[in-house]
Structures are given as structure tokens and as C-alpha cells.
């Protein structure tokens, strides 16, 4: 800044006369330059002065911009609205509305947005011409239009009108296919079901052909597809290099494969890796997921996209210590972000202190109403203490926020199932299934409710199709986490009288998840029904060794022992090894007690017990990010 300029400023009296157009132009440039250097105060000062001189909408716009960045939102909006510029100039409309949005004046913001339906096809007419740039292309118009739609969506969402918000997001995306924020909002906030997502992709596809080149379209397709639904059904996630994961369902882009190099570079983007990790998480491959998230966080310690998954993994592995450190760092760095408090809440959840866990989780939800994982974890914290009603309330809230995600519905159903309201549970499961028709979790839980309703045929159907889904994905890790399914299917087989199959499935479950008390108890029950009493006794003993207080096993063991002494089945009646064939004639006495059918008289009640146990177990398992 030169002294001469200051000199001239000293005489405010003859301002208009003495200041030439050139000077004003140079000050405009100065404002821009300060603005770009984030020196908003200086920029705002000079912009204000120029605005006073020229009263040009362009200068007013810039002044508003500076004020916006100074977080003086009301002033920024006021500068524009007082001059009614928002009704004529779209850019001004945008800034004013955005400022009010930031000032949380959603209603006013929306009024401004609604006040002008601008026709963007008349490109460049009434849009402020940029003085620094010579071109004012249609491109910019499209971007602006999309931005305004996005803003509208955000305002609507903040107002709680999620349906219209979602529409606006979609419009924004279709107007400008590169508007990733709109896409991200749709996906991250789980606004669309998988069908709707597919529909959107199809519409995008048609937009792509008009909006960009084939090469670009391929890249966009690749990136968007990678981010799409991860929660509807388990898919095979290729390991090795993450680049393969991106095109796992895009088979068409053969041409793109030729430029393999750049694609590989693209896949090294941390976002892509984060999406990959989320898929792994859903496939229950927590080990590999944690590996990937660790890798991401090593490169970018606070990669927000990957943090929820990372925290989920840490919860899964009960790594309280790591969670503690992470939560501390996050709170220190981002005290205003929901994710930080989510991490704190998860830490308390892991160490089993529900009260603080709930406190911090609800803080996270207060900060970001739309943060689904926090709502779910909030629900989990109640569920783990059998507070079904409160858990249901939290899950229900989550289900309203995450329209496109079936998990909250699944949990609501689960909780209603646990309160013995199978009818209600079934309703929720059906809803969940509509969102994710192939999800094995939903199928499994539907099977469980059918089982509880004594509809074994249906239960069998559900469990079997869930099993088919899992086996399709062909992942050992996945199977390990699905051990309850094997057990439950075995329970159904037992109820249907297919004892050998039931036994085999139980044993399979045991080899997937060794040393599980309730599996042993179930095996014992099946063996007992098969009349293999000695084996049954051993199984029950095994079960009691693992769960000493288990009343079911204790009762059943008692029955088995009684049956053993009464009834000589499969050699059990033999008093000892190498017994004499018969007693000497003079000592023989007739001694007959019991009939062979007696051990089959087993009370039905305990079996319910058993299945419930495995449901509970499953419930603990199914914590989600």
C-alpha cells in the first residue's frame, strides 16, 4: 500500500470527484487479493468503502462475501436484502441465503431462496460478470444453480423436511453431476434406499452423456459407484489392492481399464480406501477393515470419512485404550464435531459405563442431529442393559433420520422381539427387508421371530436364505460372525425333527466359534432326543463347564442322568466294562423298569430359553458403525 493512496483518502469531502475509476478498480483488486489471502477484515473494510462509492451490486456482493467469512452472517444478509438485490441477482441471493442459513435463520433463508425462481437457461444475462475473469460461461451458471439447490436442500433438511430435501439434493446433483456434496449427503445420511440409489445412478448416467466426456463419465461412475450402498447385502470384497474394489460391480467400463495407471492412482485416494473399509466392515471382516483404516489414519490422522468405521472397529475389538487416545485427540482438535463426542461415548460404551456413554452420545446427536451412528450407539447403550423401550426410542429416531438404511429398523424390530412383541417385530423386519431385501441380518431376525411364533417352516426358509447369502460371499471371517445363524438353523431343524442335520449344524457352529456353552447345551439336547444319552451327558457337562450357572443345562443334565439310570439305551445300561453276560442262576432276579420311550419326554420350555440365548448373543454382535 503506497503512501500516496493514503494521502488521497484523507479528504473525504470531495470523494466522488477525486477518486477515479482506475483507483476504484485497483481497490477492487486489492479486496480480491486480501480475500484470497483470508485477510477478511481488511477486505471487508475496503469493500465497504468501495460499495459506498459505487453502490454497484458487484461491490455489494463482495462486501457480503467478506462479511460472511467474518462470520457476521446477519450483516452479510442485511447488506443484500436491504437493497433487494437477492430478488434480482442469483449470486446475491445465494450469499444472502447462505449467510442466513449459517446464522441458523432457516425460515428467512428459505424465503430468500423461494423469492426468486431464476431461469438459468438464459445464461450470463443477469449474473454478475466477474471482473477478474473474462469468461462467464454456462458452466458457472450450472454450478450456481446446483449450489442454490444444494443450499435449499440443506435448509429444508435443517427444517426437518427430509423428503423435499432429498429431492433437492437429487436435483442439485443432476443439475451439476460434479456436485459431490449433494451426492455425499444423499449417501452418507442414508437418504435413499438401494432401489432409489440405482434409479439415481441411471439418471446420472443420462446426464453424464450431456454434461461431460466419456472419459470423465467413467471416472465419475467409478467414484460414485464406489461410494454407493454398502449395507444391503454382503458382497465379496477382493483383498489385495483396493483398486479392485472400486469396479466390483461396474463391468462395462472396459475402455477405462486401458488407462490402468491413473485408475490405480485414483484408488489410492483416501476416500476410496475409506469406502473400501466400510464395505469390509459390513462384511464383518473387522481385521482387514482395521488394517485399512489404520493405513488411512496413518496418512491422514483425522480423515473424517473413515473415523466412524475406525471407531466401529475399535469397539468391535474392545480396544478401549486406543479408543481412549483417539477420543482425547479428537475432542482436543474438533470439540465442535459430533464425531469427537461419538468417540468419547463409544469409549464409555466399551468399558461398560452406560451413563457417561449415553451422555456423550446424546451430546454428539445434539451437535449433529443427522449423525446416524451416534443415534444407533445411543440405542445400543440402552439395549445392552435391557432397557428395551428407551433403546427402541433411540433406534426409532435413527430410523427416521436414516431413511435409506435398514439397520435402525432392524434394531427396533429386534428390541420389540425381545419384549415378546413378535407381531410388531415382524412389521419392522418387513420394513427393513423392503429397504434391503438380501440382507442376511434381516433374514436371520425374521427367522428368529418366526421361530418364536412356532412357524418353523418359515423360520427354516429365512435362515436358509440368509445362509445362502453368506455362503455366496465366501468369506471365512464372515462365517465366524455368523455362528448364531448356524445354531438357530439347527434349532429349527431340531424342531422339525431333522435331528442329524441339526447336530451337524451345531457342530459346524462349534468349529466356527469354539468353546461356546450354549452350543454345547444345544448339542446335548439334540443328542438326548436322538437317544444318545451318554454323549448328551458329556455335552451338558461341557456346557456347564463353560456356563456354570446355566439352569437349562442343569435341568437337562438331571433328566439325562435319570434316563441313564432308568433306561438301558445304547449300552448305557451296562454296569461296567466287561460285565458278565448274566448272573448265576440262583441269584437272578427279574428287574425291569422304565420303557425306552421315556427319555423322549423332554419339556418343551427350555428350548425356548436356548434360542433366546442365541438371539441375545446375536444382538450384541450386531453393533454397527
Amino acid at each position: 500500500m503506497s503512501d500516496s493512496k493514503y494521502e488521497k483518502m484523507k479528504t473525504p469531502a470531495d470523494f466522488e470527484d477525486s477518486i477515479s475509476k482506475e483507483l476504484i478498480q485497483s481497490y477492487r483488486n486489492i479486496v480480491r487479493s486480501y480475500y484470497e489471502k483470508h485477510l477478511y477484515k481488511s477486505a471487508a473494510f475496503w469493500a465497504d468503502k468501495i460499495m459506498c462509492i459505487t453502490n454497484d451490486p458487484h461491490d455489494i456482493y463482495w462486501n457480503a462475501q467478506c462479511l460472511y467469512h467474518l462470520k457476521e452472517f446477519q450483516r452479510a444478509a442485511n447488506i443484500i436484502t436491504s437493497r433487494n438485490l437477492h430478488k434480482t441477482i442469483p449470486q446475491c441471493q445465494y450469499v444472502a441465503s447462505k449467510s442466513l442459513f449459517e446464522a441458523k435463520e432457516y425460515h428467512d433463508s428459505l424465503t430468500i431462496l423461494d423469492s426468486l425462481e431464476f431461469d438459468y437457461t438464459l445464461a450470463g444475462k443477469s449474473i454478475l460478470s466477474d471482473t477478474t475473469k473474462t469468461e462467464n460461461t454456462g458452466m458457472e451458471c450450472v454450478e450456481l444453480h446446483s449450489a442454490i439447490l444444494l443450499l435449499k436442500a440443506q435448509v429444508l433438511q435443517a427444517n426437518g423436511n427430509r423428503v423435499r430435501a432429498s429431492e433437492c439434493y437429487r436435483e442439485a446433483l443432476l443439475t451439476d453431476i460434479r456436485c459431490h456434496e449433494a451426492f455425499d449427503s444423499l449417501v452418507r445420511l442414508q437418504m435413499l434406499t438401494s432401489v432409489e440409489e440405482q434409479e439415481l445412478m441411471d439418471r446420472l448416467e443420462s446426464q453424464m452423456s450431456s454434461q461431460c466426456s466419456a472419459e470423465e463419465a467413467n471416472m465419475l461412475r467409478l467414484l460414485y459407484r464406489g461410494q454407493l450402498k454398502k449395507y444391503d447385502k454382503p458382497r465379496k470384497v477382493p483383498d489385495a489392492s483396493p483398486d479392485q474394489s472400486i469396479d466390483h460391480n461396474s463391468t462395462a467400463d472396459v475402455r477405462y481399464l486401458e488407462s490402468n495407471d491413473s485408475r490405480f492412482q485414483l484408488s489410492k485416494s483416501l476416500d476410496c480406501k475409506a469406502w473400501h473399509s466400510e464395505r469390509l466392515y459390513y462384511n464383518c471382516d473387522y481385521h482387514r477393515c482395521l488394517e485399512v483404516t489404520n493405513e488411512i489414519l496413518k496418512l491422514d490422522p483425522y480423515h473424517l470419512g473413515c473415523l466412524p468405521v475406525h471407531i466401529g472397529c475399535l469397539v468391535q475389538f474392545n480396544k478401549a485404550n486406543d479408543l481412549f487416545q483417539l477420543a482425547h485427540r479428537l475432542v482436543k482438535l474438533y470439540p465442535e464435531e459430533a464425531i469427537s463426542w461419538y468417540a468419547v461415548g463409544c469409549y464409555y460404551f466399551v468399558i461398560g459405563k452406560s451413563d457417561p456413554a449415553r451422555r456423550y452420545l446424546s451430546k454428539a446427536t445434539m451437535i449433529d442431529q443427522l449423525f446416524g451412528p451416534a443415534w444407533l450407539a445411543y440405542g445400543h447403550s440402552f439395549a445392552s442393559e435391557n432397557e428395551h423401550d428407551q433403546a427402541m426410542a433411540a433406534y426409532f429416531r435413527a430410523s427416521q433420520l436414516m431413511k435409506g438404511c435398514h439397520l435402525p429398523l432392524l434394531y427396533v424390530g429386534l428390541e420389540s422381539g425381545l419384549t415378546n412383541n413378535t407381531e410388531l417385530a415382524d412389521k419392522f423386519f418387513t420394513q427393513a427387508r423392503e429397504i434391503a431385501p438380501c440382507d442376511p441380518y434381516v433374514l436371520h431376525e425374521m427367522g428368529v421371530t418366526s421361530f418364536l411364533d412356532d412357524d418353523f417352516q418359515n423360520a427354516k426358509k429365512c435362515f436358509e436364505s440368509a445362509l445362502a447369502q453368506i455362503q455366496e460371499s465366501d468369506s471365512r471371517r464372515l462365517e465366524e460372525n455368523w455362528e448364531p445363524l448356524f445354531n438357530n438353523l439347527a434349532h429349527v431343524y431340531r424342531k422339525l425333527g431333522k435331528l442329524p442335520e441339526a447336530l451337524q449344524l451345531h457342530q459346524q457352529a462349534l468349529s466356527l466359534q469354539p468353546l461356546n456353552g450354549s452350543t454345547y447345551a444345544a448339542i446335548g439336547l439334540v443328542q438326548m432326543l436322538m437317544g444318545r444319552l451318554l454323549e448328551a451327558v458329556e455335552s451338558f457337562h461341557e456346557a456347564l463347564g463353560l456356563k456354570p450357572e446355566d439352569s437349562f443345562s442343569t435341568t437337562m443334565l438331571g433328566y439325562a442322568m435319570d434316563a441313564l439310570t432308568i433306561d438301558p439305551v445304547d449300552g448305557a445300561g451296562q454296569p461296567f466294562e466287561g460285565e458278565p453276560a448274566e448272573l448265576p442262576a440262583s441269584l437272578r432276579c427279574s428287574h425291569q423298569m422304565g420303557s425306552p420311550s421315556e427319555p423322549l419326554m423332554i419339556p418343551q420350555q427350555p428350548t425356548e430359553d436356548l434360542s433366546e440365548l442365541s438371539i441375545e448373543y446375536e444382538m450384541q454382535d450386531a453393533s454397527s458403525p
Partner: protein
Amino acid sequence: MLEELKKLDLREVKKDLIRGYNECLGRGLSETAKWLSELRISLSSIQVNPSEVEAEPAVPAEEIDFYDLARTLLELREYDRCAHFISSSEHPKLVFLRNWAQFLASEKRHIDNMTEASASSQHSPCLQELRDLLSSLNLLINGTGSILGSKSSAQSRDGYLLYLHGIVLKKLKVRQQAVESLVKAINISPLNWGAWLELSQLVTDRCMLSNLKLPNHWIKYFFIGHMYLELQMNEEALEIYMFLKESGFEKCSYLNAQIALAYHNKRDVEIAVEMFRKLLDYDPYRLENMDTYSNLLYVKEMRAELAHLAHSVSEVDKYRAETCVVIGNFYSLRNEHSKAVQSFQRALRLKPNFLSAWTLMGHEFMELKNINAAMKSYRQAIEVNWLDYRAWYGLGQTYEILKMPQFSQYHYKKAQALRPNDSRMLIALGEANEKVEKFKDAMKCYYKARNVGDIERTALLKLAKLHDTMGHKDNAAELYLEYAAESQRMLSIEGNGGMAGGSDRVELARAYKYLANHFLIQGDIEQACMYCNKCLEFEETKEEGKALLRSIAEKRQKEETANMLIDMPVTEESTPADGQTVSIHSAVPVRLQMSGLSSLESPNVSVQSNVATPGPADVTNRSDMSLTDSDDTPMVLSP
């Protein structure tokens, strides 16, 4: 199993031993290396050129640095560090070391975290670690990552990795697959004695043993011997061990200890003690099997010896599981049961899978009347080794105390199956069968107990009582007769028999009483009279004896008055001594019954003492006779 004992080629054996030692040491399997080198010193006279021993392929130069570091860290028990530094290596030896270190790390954590109430909860982190380790081993071995897959890879042919796989599977109680893995491991690297030992804990019976597909290797003799010992086939075990001893391992501490164990199992206590003494002379600082030695000393109640042993082992190493067991036994012999329990608990903290400590702790808890704790201990013992008959027996006892006869019967049956020729098991089983009202089975048990050599001499009596309760009066009487005869013989052997077994005397008195009653009912007044007189010998039955005699006298008088002629031959048949007593008693007129008892007491006693001298020999003769006459059923029974 073994068809014949083939002569060992000691030179080959020595070469094998050296090779095995190198392999195991290179993998940090120090226990196995120790065992192998223990065998080697017996063969020290045989010279083998190091070049003759085929060496394993060396670790490649680029990894040797990491390998050496890992080995050292493993030795220093820094397991996690060890695993960390070789986390990405692909060489089989390093892969094994990594997984082995991970396994040891989880075991160490498990032991460190173990608290009193560790009922192995389902979500304990150690269990999770084991499961994860299993998953990664499955991945390495089967390629597909599933247990059931069978894709062969380079790793699936590594015997040591398979050995570890087997251990982990065994820990997780996936027994079938554990056996498969271990057998594979043994077939690939037979010199890994650790694998054989792990396998031995999974073999439940003889049939399973013979169905195992094991390589024909000299080390198999050791395994079979070990197995026979576990399965209580002591004679067969001794045969193998003697053969091995003669083939050149006469100095081997391990072998001698095993032989001593065999004698211990056979209840040849003297020889076993002698063997252990010799072993201690040769190898005074060896602590293995000292727990068994202390058991022997305990059974023999050799207090001084046991105290000496306790002191000397605690000097060698105070914090070894074996030492703690010896000390526990020492306290137990001094009736300081709670201290004994503490010792056993310490032993278990040092070595959670130490079988004898679990069983002995169970016994101590039984002494302390802490039934629940005893039961837990016994259960753990069975968890560790399915073949421990003492634990099964102990469980049977606990259930008996808890008045759960079905359970008690089940457990006794297990114990008996494991040790078929031990009369104690049979008697216990018989009693349990009686309690659940399976009299026929109970009877079978008692007969068998008698046939296998009744250690506690109770089978006969129990049998007699049982027959009595079931209404087989004749059989009962026969058995009582036999019992009485046997007891008389025992009493005469032991001299005056005043000291020997108060309860025995009571039982004998009861037997006489029963016989007296029985013959009275039968109408055999002579016999009845004789046993009545026997009854008078014992304080407990004196009164009843007198009462019986009185009723006999009454009866006789009635008979005499009613039918003089029939009475005649009876008096003729009776021996002179008997005749005397009888005549005296019959001379006692009916009025005596009315008169005060005190007047009756003195003459009767004097009569009794008169009779007693000629009595015993005579009675034994008679009862023997009667037994052989009644086509002697028990003898037919022997299976």
C-alpha cells in the same frame, strides 16, 4: 499299535535325536529339545559325525538377522516383540516362530490374568486371541481359510505349524480336528515329541489309539509306552519300557521315571519308591514326576522322607508346579489341609494344566468339606486329562455327598471304565447302583470286585447285605458264612485281632447275628445256636445274642415236648463242644427268662469263653464246606 518290538538301530536313533534337537531348538521348542537331549546322553558312547546328520535348509541370508532377533526375544519371553519383528516374513521357520510367539503371548496373558473365579468366560480377550490365531493358522495351512478346506500349500506340509494348529484346536476343544492335525504333524516331523504328548492327551481309549495312523518310527515306542501308562495298561507299558531300557536307554531319567510311574499305577508301592530313589540319586535336580513320588510317600505315610523331599525340591526351585505339589502333599500329611490347598493353588497358577495338582486339590477340598470347590477341582482335572480315574472317582464321591445318586453312579462308572480292575472303583460303583436301585448291576459290581482281589475286603459283605435286602436269604447266608470264615482267618493271622479294624469287628458281629437269625428261621437250631454264641463274643451283639439264645431254647423245648424223636439226630450231629453249650442252654429252664438278666449274665459269659477256644477252626471248616457245597457261584463268575 505295536506288532513286535524291533531292535533299534542306535546309530540312526542318535542321528535322529541330533536332527530333532536342532530343529526344535531352532524353533524355540525348548521342552522338546530338552527331552531329546535327555535321551541323547544315554547314547553318548555312540559317536556320530556332525556331517552325517542331515541339516534343515538354513534361513536365507536376508532374513537371518530377523530370525536371530526373534529367537532371542522368544527365549527372553518377549513374545509380542518377537512376533512384531517377523510379522511379514514368509519363510516357514519364521512363520512358525511368529505364530508360536503369538500363541505363547496369549497363553502368558491368560495365566497372568487368571483370577480365582476365572470360569473361562465366553468373551474373555484370551479366548478371542486364540480364535484369531486359529483363523490365521487355518488360513496358512488350508489356504482357503476354512477349517474344512483342504487345499494343500507349502505351509500345510510344515510339521511344526501343524503341531501348533493342533495345540490351538485342542485348546478350543475342537478335538477331532486337533487329532487330525497332530497326526499329520507327527507324520511329517516325527521327532517333535511335544506333538506326541499333545496327541496323547487326546486319545480317549485303546480303540482310538490303534486307529491312529502313526509313522513307524522308533519314537513311537516311547509314545505307545506313554499311552499304555495313561490307559492304565501297566503291564504292557512296562514291557515296552523294559525293552527300551535294554536297548540302550538304561540311564535315561525320563524312561526310569516312566517305569516308576508304571509301578505306581500297579500299586507296587515299594518298587516304585525304590525306582524313584535311584532316579534321585542319578539325577537329583530333576523335578518332573516328583509329585508322583510325593504321592507314593504320602500313601506309605513316610513322613520323614516326604519332609526331606519337600525341603530338597524347594531348594532346587521353589516356584515350580511340581515343587508346590510336593509341599502340598507334605502339608496334607500333616493334616494342614488349607495350607495344602494353597500350595496346590500356587502350583496351578504356575502351570494351569497340571493334572495332579487339580486332583489333589480336589482331595484336599473334600477333607475340608468344601464340596463345591472339590467338584470344581475335579472337573478341571478331567478337563485337563479325560483319563484321570481319580478325578472321576472324586466326582462320584462329591455327588454321593450331595445326595445325587444318578450323578454319582455315572461318574463312578467312568472311573471304573478307566481302571477296570480296581476293586475300589467297583465297590463304589456297586454302592451307587444300589442307591439308584439297580440291584442287579450292583451285584455284578460286587462279584467282579471280589474277583479282581478285593482290596478293602468289603465286597463280600456288601453282596451279602444286598442279597438280604432283595430277599435272597439263602444266598445272603452263604455269603455271610464266607465272610465270617474269611474274617476269622484274618483275625487269626493278625493275632488277637483286638486292634485290627473296629468296624471289621462290628461287621463280623452283625454277620454272626444274621447267621444266627437265619438258621433259626431255617430251623437249623444247631447252627443257630453256634452263631448265637459267636454273637456273645462281641459287645455290640451280646444282648441280641442272648435274646436269640433264649428264643432258641424256647423253641427247642417246644420241639422236645412236641416231638422228641426228631430232636435226636440234631444233638448227635453237633460237635461235642457245641453239644455242650447247647445242652447247657437247653438245660436252662424257661423260668430263667423271667428272672433278672443279671443272674443270667455271669454263667453265660463263662460258657462262651469255654467255647471260644475250640470254636474258630471248627467254624471255618464248616463254613468253607458249606460254601463249596452250594455249588459256589462266585467262582464261576470270573470273566
